[in-house]
């Protein structure tokens, strides 16, 4: 159908539309009009992607000078492929409706093999790729730096975007890294020696270039051709490479010295934590390395590798890592921390020192994106609470909205189970997690559910270790065997290949009617990337609140930073983080309005307002006071009732006019009034 979204003609490749899709497009248009950024939360399965694509493509066609490009970032390869497929559908619809051949060029990058195609990126109207191509400075520099300013950037499934940012800026150095780096440096030295004998002019030419400084890059940035690289700070561009590392030999000597220093730092017996300035002070005192040459390290190495015409850069990953670290540590005095640990906490007897250079501020990596592109849209099915994202990513959105799912029948049923039938409180909190009664009650819950839920059940635990312990305990108590009488059991492991097999078998068992249970882990690969549509997931059980492992020093440092810099309290952040993962897990089962599923939160802490309030609105609004602190028996009763209702036939007519609209219905005044209530502005 052809829609009129606030005066914009939008081709929408379906015969019907969900009210929330219309509302979403309205908000999106408003954001693009304002040339600002937006944060939009819309439930999964309500056709978010096609709404985004339809509106932005229409916008591009109508205002080709305002928006020149759509950069669509998603997380996983299947997600990217889905976007491409939906785009294809949209383009076919355009061709059919307008009768003209489409001249839109869309491009998907989904592997590093395709990296050498950046001229095409410049010409494509739509680019679809993974987050890293934009957020990881090492890759963004290669792929994305020439993208036009008038682009719209969409981060879909963006609920974890802060972690992607942090990952792309953090470095870990082990003894093995340093050893490989040592080899790299030796190779460099030999190559330089050889070239010096054969082609000394080449090195002299490089020297001349370095005297002139990185002016070239500076010109480009000022004229706004490049996406700025957070690893390559602006100041560097103003200056010439310092004399101490200008010749190739000097630079190699410098690297050697730096390497020796790092080796010495790893020779420790107790944990050290320090800030970047402390580290710089120490390195100056110990080996007389100044801050300035350190900052040029990454760029200087790149120049050297280019000059030496080294084809396979991958061989030099260790020395590249070290020089990136040098540049980062000397560039940012804030937002990073250095933690050197002599051994792992679990195995204090095995010496395995690691230097963590950890980014604590996700805004550093994403800053260039917000600054460069006129509109950046952060969207996902679970972004609650919405206001935390602008805070931790440090940007000012023009729209922030959360959309509900309009439903003709309540197809999701969130239940909070707080007690066993023996009235013992159920919780995964630290003090009681080893408690026999809790583990048994969790087992009973799963057992009871396995008897009443058809086809597939997915259960999530808070961590691998916790799951392994509970599974072992259930095994000893014979609970698993009883569950096996009802369904087959498959369990996620840390081995991706094994888990993939288990996942496929799980689906097979759901498909052939046998029914199965998948035991899985929040924050694991399954919870982040696999959907359990229809019979593949009729119930999701979240055992416990998936708090991150709080004993890690890196996390503690990050929490401190959040508190000091953004005034976010530790507990608020931890709860937010736990709840977004819980929401991700339970949201896996609902993938559309014809789908249905139980969402069982098995921990009494979910009943508290501070937890519940952080769930997405579309889940929260279905939690009634009567489903807050249930026993297992009550849960079974409510579930039975729900499943019986859902098993009734559900036709299009039931939805029409309520949660599914024709064009005429959409145009009625009354409906538009209703639609305006779907989006809740924050």
């Amino acid at each position, binding site marked *: 159908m052809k829609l009129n979204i606030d005066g914009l003609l939008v081709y929408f490749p*379906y*015969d*019907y*539309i*969900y009210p929330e899709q219309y509302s979403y497009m309205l908000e999106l248009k408003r954001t693009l009009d304002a040339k600002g950024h937006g944060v939009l939360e819309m439930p999964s399965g309500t056709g978010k*992607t096609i709404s985004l694509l339809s509106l932005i493509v229409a916008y591009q066609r109508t205002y080709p000078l305002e928006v020149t490009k759509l950069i669509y970032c998603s*997380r*996983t*390869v*299947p997600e990217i*492929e889905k976007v491409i*497929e939906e785009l294809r559908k949209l383009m076919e619809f355009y061709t059919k409706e307008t009768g003209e051949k489409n001249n839109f060029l869309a491009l998907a990058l*989904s*592997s*590093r093999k395709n990296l050498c195609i950046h001229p095409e990126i410049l010409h494509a109207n739509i680019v679809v*790729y993974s987050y*890293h191509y934009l957020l990881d400075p*090492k*890759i963004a520099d290669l792929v994305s730096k020439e993208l036009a300013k008038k682009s719209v950037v969409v981060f879909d499934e963006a609920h974890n975007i802060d972690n992607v940012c942090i*990952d792309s800026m953090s*470095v*870990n150095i*082990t003894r093995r*890294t340093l050893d490989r780096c040592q080899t790299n440096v030796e190779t460099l030295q030999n190559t330089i020696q050889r070239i010096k004998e054969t082609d000394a002019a080449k090195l002299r030419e490089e020297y001349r270039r370095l005297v002139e400084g990185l002016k070239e890059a500076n010109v480009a940035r000022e004229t706004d051709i490049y996406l700025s690289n957070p690893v390559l700070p602006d100041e560097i561009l103003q200056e010439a490479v310092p004399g101490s590392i200008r010749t190739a030999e000097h630079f190699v000597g410098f690297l050697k010295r730096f390497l020796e220093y790092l080796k010495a730092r790893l020779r420790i017996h107790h944990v050290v934590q320090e800030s970047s300035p402390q580290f710089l002070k120490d390195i100056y005192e110990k080996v007389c390395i100044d801050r300035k040459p350190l900052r040029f390290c990454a760029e200087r190495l790149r120049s050297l590798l280019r000059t030496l015409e080294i084809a396979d850069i991958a061989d030099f*990953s*260790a020395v590249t890592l070290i020089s990136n670290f040098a540049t980062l540590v000397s560039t940012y005095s804030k937002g990073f921390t250095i933690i050197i640990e002599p051994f*792992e906490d*679990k*195995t204090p007897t*095995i010496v395995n020192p690691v230097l963590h250079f*950890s980014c604590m501020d996700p805004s550093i990596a994403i800053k260039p994106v917000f600054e460069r592109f006129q509109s950046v849209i952060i969207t996902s099915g679970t972004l609650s609470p919405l206001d935390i994202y602008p805070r931790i990513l440090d940007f000012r959105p023009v729209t922030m909205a959360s959309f509900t799912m309009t439903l003709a029948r309540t197809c999701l049923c969130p239940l909070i189970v707080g007690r066993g039938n023996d009235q013992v409180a159920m919780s995964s909190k630290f003090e009681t997690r080893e408690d026999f009664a809790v583990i048994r009650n969790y087992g009973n819950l799963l057992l009871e559910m396995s008897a009443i839920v058809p086809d597939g059940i997915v259960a999530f635990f808070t961590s691998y270790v916790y799951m392994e*312990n509970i*599974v*072992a305990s259930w*095994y000893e108590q*014979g609970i*698993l*065997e009883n569950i*096996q*009488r009802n*369904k*087959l*059991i498959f*369990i996620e*492991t840390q081995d*991706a*290949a*094994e888990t*993939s*097999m*288990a*996942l*496929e078998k799980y689906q097979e068992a759901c498909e052939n009617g*046998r029914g199965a249970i998948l035991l899985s882990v929040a924050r694991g*690969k399954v919870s982040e*990337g696999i959907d359990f*549509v229809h019979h593949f997931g009729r119930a999701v059980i979240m055992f416990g609140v998936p708090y991150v*492992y709080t004993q890690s020093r890196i996390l503690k440092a990050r929490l401190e930073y959040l508190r000091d810099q953004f005034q976010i309290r530790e507990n608020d952040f931890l709860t937010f983080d736990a709840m977004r993962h819980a929401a991700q897990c339970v949201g896996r089962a609902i993938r559309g309005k*014809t789908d249905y599923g139980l969402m069982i939160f098995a921990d009494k802490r979910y009943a508290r307002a501070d937890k519940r309030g952080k769930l997405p609105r579309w889940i929260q609004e279905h939690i009634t006071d009567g489903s807050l602190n249930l026993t297992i028996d009550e849960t079974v009763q409510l579930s039975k009732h729900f499943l019986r209702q859902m098993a009734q036939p559900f036709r299009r007519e039931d939805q029409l006019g309520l949660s*599914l609209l024709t064009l005429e219905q959409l145009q009625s005044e009354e409906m538009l009034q209703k639609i305006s209530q779907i989006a809740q502005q924050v």
Partner: protein
Amino acid sequence: MAALSEEVLLVVKRVRQRKQDGTLYLMTERIAWGPEGKDRFTVSHLYADIRCQKISPDGKAKIQLQLVLHTGESTTFHFANESTALKDRDAAKDLLQQLLPKFKKKANKELEEKNRMLQEDPVLFQLYKDLVVSQVISAEEFWASRLKLNSVDHALSNNNKQEVGISAAFLADIRPQTDGCNGLKYNLTSDIIESIFRTYPAVKQKYAENVPHNLTEKEFWTRFFQSHYFHRDRINTGQQDIFSECAKQDEKVSHLSCVKNPMVDLMSLEDKTLDEGYGSLTALPNSSKTVKENSNSAIIKRFNHHSAMVLAAGLRKVEASSDQASETSSTDGNSRDSDFFQPPIKKVKLQEAIEYEDLQNESGPKTIALNLKKSDRYSHGPVPLQSHHYSTSQDIINSVSCIQEEISCYKPCLTRVMSSSAASSAITALSPGGVLMQAGAQQTISQLVSTDVQSELKHLYTAAGELLRHFWSCFPVNTPFLEEKVVKMQSNLERFQSTKLHPFQEKIQREYLSTNLTNHVEEMIQAAYNKFHAWQTRRMLRKT
């Protein structure tokens, strides 16, 4: 005493039941026990009621045999004859072992099936009465083609019955119990053994290889449980363990098979671009694990493996038969190149993933992909034998346009119409009751004939139809069996004519109804006779 009429297979004396001495009798259909000195049985169980038997472990002081009934009740016999107790018990056990399975499966499925068919289908029932009860044809003949027909109708319901799957919890039923002196006791039934064999074909193979020439059955299972016990936690797979191979085999199989559905392939899920050394890892990989964690993950591994094997056991049968089916289809000259025309699974899964069924109007009935066994046959097409008989599409288009043209230039010639009186008489003649409509106004059979006669006629038709179906299904007569059958059918038809058709004809004659009611049936039978005689004369000619 009822037992007198039964054949007694085994008698064991000095068997105690409820602390009472007595004698145990194993008969053809039941097992019974009577107390000493009395001539009646206080215990009597039909074999069909017995679920399983259990025996006391070797070395126990009391030598016992327990029967567990389907109702859950159980009866225990204590063999009390000191010198021969063990032998007595084993004799009883072995005999029961042979007898019980027979009774378990004896439920006469075929008879049930026939009964069900007759009950569900009144027409069939009537036919059965007409043909079998009145002894026109024998019951075997009647069912011979019926059951086959039926199995074609519901392809899976009969011959190809869906296999009953295996309970995932079958190992739960043999949870070991400690016997109190550092030993473990497993209770095995033939059902469980079958489940083990079906789930783990490798074990079945081992069994076939080793029992009974290398190991006794008991030793085999002892070893199995010992190995399986270790197998679970993967701590020790000793070299002398005959099952260590199985584990390796299983592992090989699970490594060979990779994920078919790309949407669940976790390895290619991420567009992993972070190099080694980057990222904020909270726990580095290859971190060493404690022994407990190792055994925990072994349990998890085993559950995944077990579930996969159980699932596969349920599918194995289906696959085997479908393989067979496709093999037979490929023997008729069709290669399996149809696979190439199937859309790749990834594309299908992607389409499924982005589809919103409620947003779209149903795009007509779901089409089925053209499944070509041999594509070149399709593209070349059958060559018409007599091409001149066919009008080309161009011809048809031409003629249609011709007609259209003629119609478009048709002009009614108003001066040369017929007179109004002639026209009205023509209309009268063509109206119901008119001269030309006589045939249509004839009274229908339903008005002439009583309902009894009608239903009788109907039955005659179905019966004749059935017989004729049998008759004609014999042609072409190319096997001795069919020869025999066609002759028999011919005589069946004659018998039908004399015992059923002729009495009916006489009856309608008595009621002064026109005999042409049965003309058609007669014609059909006559046609069959003609065919039969033609066949017979040809056969005679060939013989001479």
